[in-house]
């Protein structure tokens, strides 16, 4: 970037901002519902300040140089906030693209020599393109963080350990059982066994859409770990289709106590614990 252009841009900061704001406000995709015009203006001003302030002749090609880090930081901050606020990628991209338009417009007005103009436009384009890439990267990172947080939340809420009886725990699993979830299920279950001193745990898989050999392996692992701790683990809620796939896949579940329903698993647990559930005698004086 020639010294001239630097100074030119510095001098024209105001004009650039106005042009940029005009571009942004004219955009059909302007999200006044998500961001107020004042806020947009202060964001834009901050970015131009940093951009123009850090422009020098050396750093055009190297976006990793230290001089760029304030710009990238501001842009990154904006992109991440936008990702969280629910802006679309196009809207976020247009934020930077409209700045490019504004910068180019100013260059066009101020530089008369076509050759010079072309050189400078090329440089500005390169910088702004790089910044767009950074914006997108950060934007996607922001989105990924949202997804990760939600995944964690789902994992947390989807593995409740229920105490169905003194000494009997039940854990209904809903959704696909992958290895990450097995970890959480297993850790929660084992910890709860220790905390409550329960000797029987029922793993109900009614809500698991399919059991393949990997899922079966996870189940077997959970059962084995439970046994090592000194408790028994029953698997219930096995639908006929699942029984079919298990046998067709040649998975050996013979070492595991399996029941078709949670009720029969509970009945089994009662038997093991030598508990009896009886229907109270229907005498007239118990009913009022």
């Amino acid at each position, binding site marked *: 970037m020639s010294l001239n252009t630097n100074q030119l841009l510095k001098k024209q900061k105001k004009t650039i901002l106005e042009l940029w704001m005009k571009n942004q406000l004219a955009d059909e995709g302007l999200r006044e519902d998500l961001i107020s015009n004042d806020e947009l203006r202060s964001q834009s001003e901050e970015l131009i300040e940093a951009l123009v302030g850090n422009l020098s002749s050396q750093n055009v090609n190297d976006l990793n140089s230290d001089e760029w880090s304030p710009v990238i930081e501001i842009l990154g901050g904006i992109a991440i906030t936008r990702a969280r606020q629910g802006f679309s990628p196009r809207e976020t991209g247009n934020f930077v693209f409209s700045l490019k338009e504004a910068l180019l417009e100013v260059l066009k007005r101020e530089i008369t020599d076509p050759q010079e103009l072309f050189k400078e436009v090329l440089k500005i384009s390169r910088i702004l393109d790089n910044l767009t890439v950074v914006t997108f990267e950060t934007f996607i990172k922001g989105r990924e963080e949202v997804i990760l947080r939600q995944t964690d939340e789902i994992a947390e809420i989807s593995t409740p350990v229920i105490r169905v009886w003194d000494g009997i725990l039940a854990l209904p699993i809903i959704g696909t059982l992958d290895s990450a979830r097995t970890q959480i299920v297993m850790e929660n279950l084992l910890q709860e066994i220790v905390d409550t001193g329960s000797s029987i745990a029922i793993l109900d898989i009614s809500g698991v859409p399919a059991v393949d050999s990997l899922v079966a392996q996870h189940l077997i692992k959970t059962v084995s770990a439970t046994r090592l*701790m000194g408790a028994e683990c029953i698997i219930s809620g096995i639908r006929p289709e699942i029984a079919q796939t298990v046998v067709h896949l040649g998975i050996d579940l013979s070492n595991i106590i399996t029941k078709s329903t949670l009720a029969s698993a509970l009945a089994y647990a009662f038997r093991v614990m030598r508990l009896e559930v009886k229907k109270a005698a229907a005498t007239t004086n118990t009913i009022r």
Partner: protein
Amino acid sequence: MDKIPILRMGRFLLVTIQVDLYDRLALTLEADLIQAVQKHNARGVLIDISAVSIVDSFMGRIIGNIASMSKILDAETVVVGMQPAVAITLIELGLPLKGVHTALDMEKGMDLLRSMMDTTDNDEDEDAIADDFITE
């Protein structure tokens, strides 16, 4: 050298492992315990590992050995109080400790041993339970 104390309670032997076992200590325990099983004609061995945070394949093997050796001397082994993290690690390592009985805590382990005794023999008359400390 450190030694892990072995307690006698009636015809059961109680061992509480309070430190992370290093190899030599584990081997000494194995030898001492088998000696004690024979000497006291013990019918059950309870090993409390609730304070143990790491069980690797060597330690797992020692526990398995103790169980198999005791079995030959007609005593059942119950490992009690295994930490969840240890249980998960052992399974992933590929050591399900077959032949070793497990229980959640000392009390449940004792119940388990008693119930196993009940099924195997009813004729033997147990003496009053006496705690005593074996020093060798």
